[in-house]
């Protein structure tokens, strides 16, 4: 009995220690990860990138002489969990800011929660138009899909690639995919004088898209504007190949998976996307990619190439370090509320901050402005078509 009581006491003490707030020496950041869920192929490795950034920052002396401490919360890509995460970071962990959440669906609920708690959040991938506009504490280290796909259209035009007629195919059960299909692509097609002949919809979990592809096939179009995560893009491309439809898919960031050409296994040739990172661009991106690959391999993750969201997450940690430096934050619990306000003010002012893959500026809506890399699938890899500034 005595052993049992001391065992319980030790367990309770250990539990208290693990949930206790950060020590005075730490600057705590929350990190909303999604290790499962609809975007898992894009999100699974974000943790590696953030760990790399935090280790680099701490190894070079930290921020204002203090180390950064990460608290991680796995949302599984579920908006409800993303809202719970921000609440926990703000109330229980005394975090100064949040890296994440990932998607627009999560931002829709996490941003209002963060706004009430006055804690800055920088989303990793959310790109649905105007989503961050109403929120002073909601930032997105991503470019809106209008600018991304606009760059793709610009590249097609500059290269003289056939794009007279188009169809749109988009998922209806994902916020950003639906926004691409209904709000981004139609005006872009109009702007570039492309005749939009058909719109087909699907749910990203649907295993069969043969009906939609038959509808596209009947229209005999030059391009198909796609709003979907990589999994659904993969299904659509395979079905297009099966039904022998020769068409160029164009897409935005939801489909920006560096492994997609390999996973397509011959399908989706010439698929063209815009992204904010291209691993082979210069020496710094190459060296980041190599270091990332080593860690991914050690973690037993199949994809060893970083995607743009890994880089976004890495940049966010670096951005927090910079703005905390500028705001002279101390990490003291008594100062947390005031320091969050100071961090928010510095984020809103951030301009031309040099990071891996280009300079980052936050615009008035809290969305990032940075270079866009347009690439297409050739064989089993992405090839760069051009770099554009929004």
């Amino acid at each position: 009995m005595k052993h049992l009581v001391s065992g319980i006491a030790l367990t309770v003490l250990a539990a208290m220690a693990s949930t206790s707030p950060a020590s005075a020496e730490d600057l705590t950041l929350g990190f909303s990860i999604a290790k499962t869920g609809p975007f898992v192929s894009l999100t699974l490795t974000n943790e590696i990138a953030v760990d790399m950034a935090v280790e680099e920052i701490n190894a070079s002396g930290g921020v204002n002489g203090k180390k950064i401490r990460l608290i991680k919360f796995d949302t599984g890509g579920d908006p409800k969990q993303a809202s719970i995460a921000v609440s926990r970071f703000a109330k229980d962990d005394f975090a100064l800011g949040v890296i994440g959440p990932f998607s627009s669906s999560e931002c829709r609920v996490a941003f209002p929660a963060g706004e009430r708690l006055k804690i800055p959040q920088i989303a990793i991938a959310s790109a649905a138009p105007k989503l961050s506009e109403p929120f002073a504490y909601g930032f997105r280290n991503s470019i809106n899909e209008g600018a991304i796909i606009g760059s793709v259209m610009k590249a097609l035009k500059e290269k003289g690639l056939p794009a007279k007629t188009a169809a749109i195919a988009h998922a209806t059960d994902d916020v950003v995919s639906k926004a691409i299909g209904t709000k981004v692509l139609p005006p872009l097609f109009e702007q570039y004088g492309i005749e939009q002949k058909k719109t087909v919809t699907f749910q990203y979990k649907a295993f069969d898209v043969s009906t939609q592809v038959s509808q596209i096939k009947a229209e005999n179009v030059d391009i198909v504007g796609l709003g979907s995560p990589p999994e659904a893009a993969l299904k659509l491309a395979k079905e297009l190949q099966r039904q022998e439809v020769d068409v160029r898919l164009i897409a935005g960031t939801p489909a920006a998976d560096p492994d997609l050409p390999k996973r397509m296994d011959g399908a989706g040739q010439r698929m063209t996307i815009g992204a904010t990172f291209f691993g082979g661009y210069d020496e710094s991106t190459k060296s980041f990619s190599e270091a990332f690959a080593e860690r991914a391999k050690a973690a037993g993750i199949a994809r060893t190439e970083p995607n743009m969201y890994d880089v976004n997450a890495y940049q966010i940690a670096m951005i927090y370090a910079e703005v905390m430096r500028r705001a002279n934050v101390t990490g003291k619990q008594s100062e947390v509320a005031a320091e969050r306000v100071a961090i928010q003010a510095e984020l809103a002012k951030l301009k031309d901050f040099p990071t891996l893959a280009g300079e980052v500026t936050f615009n008035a809506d809290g969305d990032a402005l940075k270079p866009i890399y347009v690439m297409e699938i050739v064989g089993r890899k992405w090839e760069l078509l051009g770099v554009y500034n929004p």
Partner: protein
Amino acid sequence: MHVQQIVNGLMLGSVYVFVGIAFTMIIGIINFVNFSIPALFMLGAMTAWALLNVGVVAPLALVAGLLVGIVASMAVEQVLYKRLSGRDPVISLIGSLAFLILYEHLVIHILGSDQQAFPALLPDFNIRFGDIVVGLGQLCGFAISILLVFGLSYLLKHTPVGRNLRAISESTETATILGINVRRHVQMMFVAVGLFTALGGLLFSLNYLQVSALMGQEIGLKAIAAMIIGGVGSIWGAVVGGMLIGILEVTTIGLFGADTVDIVIYALLLLLLVVRPSGILGGALQSTQRI
């Protein structure tokens, strides 16, 4: 293009038929809604994919997929039927749901939750008639389903095993009193369901060239709807229900978009439950055509 859409609908329906028959076999005999069936569908495919991925030769990987399906089905029998039969049927029902989630999350834990590309074992697993493309995987699946339905009808009508199964489906107690080894017959049925469902998963993967830990869920739900629409316990009902849902799904997507599919299918299901609770073929067939 309309012909292609009809083909798409029939091929899609054949996937539901395959799983719907598996549900029907088990409900018809022991009156047990086995929610683990979608997981057996997934296990066959994911096992084969994982083995192919580490370089195992295709025939061995496919056979291993079938074996894992059988073993997983037998585990359900051992836990839910052997130990819990005779208790409140709700316990078995919830238990089978627990198996579904357990199997799915074991696979997520071991192989991840990403959707994966199943390798094309044949360069083009389709046949073409001009512009019309027919998936061989689904065609084989449909052919096997129809053969199975005929085989089951023959088995139930003309063989001692069939008579025993019909007796068990009427009353396990009476069957036991008549000297029928109920346990052995039920085990045989679980093996058949595991084998048949895992085969369905493999054919699906060969055709759609995709696998994931959660691949069985949507198919499982639609297969249950197919079974109810066709008539619970009727093997021909599962065929009719599956095909109807496939055609309905394709037509609805074509006319109103993908968001309305579930509204139409499940509204039809509810309407049918109100108007004809026994389903389209429920009650219309002789007992030898039912299980």
